[in-house]
């Protein structure tokens, strides 16, 4: 299936731990994104990245870092997890350009205890 996939689907961890969420797309897109959806369902961009440029939303703590081993992957690393990091994290990808439609992964529900 052509899609955007994320692992794991659920992640439960303790405060202070470091965790990663993986994202892969097989749509041949050249831009990938990470979005955060909070408990009120608000969606906010965290990062957008293509092979030329990483754009970071200035409100994202530097404990969050994206890493892209290749064009098809954009993983999210989170250090020193805090309670407020609990949310659903969505990966997405699109072709660069005004008409490119972002396609979203199924989400990773992160719960920090």
């Amino acid at each position: 299936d052509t899609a955007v996939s994320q692992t794991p689907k659920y992640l439960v961890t303790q405060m202070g731990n470091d965790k990663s969420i993986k994202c892969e797309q097989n749509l041949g897109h050249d831009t990938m994104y990470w979005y955060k959806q909070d408990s009120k369902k608000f969606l906010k961009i965290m990062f957008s990245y293509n092979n030329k440029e990483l754009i970071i939303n200035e409100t994202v703590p530097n404990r969050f870092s994206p890493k892209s081993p290749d064009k098809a992957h954009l993983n999210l690393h989170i250090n020193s997890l805090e309670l407020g990091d609990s949310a659903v994290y969505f990966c997405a990808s699109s072709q660069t350009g005004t008409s490119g439609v972002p396609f979203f992964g199924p989400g990773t529900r992160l719960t920090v205890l």
Partner: protein
Amino acid sequence: AQSVAQPEDQVNVAEGNPLTVKCTYSVSGNPYLFWYVQYPNRGLQFLLKYITGDNLVKGSYGFEAEFNKSQTSFHLKKPSALVSDSALYFCAVRDMGGSQGNLIFGKGTKLSVKP
């Protein structure tokens, strides 16, 4: 700065009736507008987009949206609602201030269709 507003937290419709989910936008320049749907515990599914051209855009699952430049609106519509349309709907605008054009989302509108 680009933004979208969804003025209704929830819309309630009887099955078989027409539905409208409202969205207004604020952009500098031409707007690039999108609608997505999110079912419970699922990711966002693309419904339709407006880039340029006809003001009435047809999308997936029988949905359409009407672009109105004078009212800066992009309302989502469907002639006959189904119970299975019950979900959370997001309007979004492309952020043209950055080079990669990520989407800026409204707060979402919960659509409830009753039998």
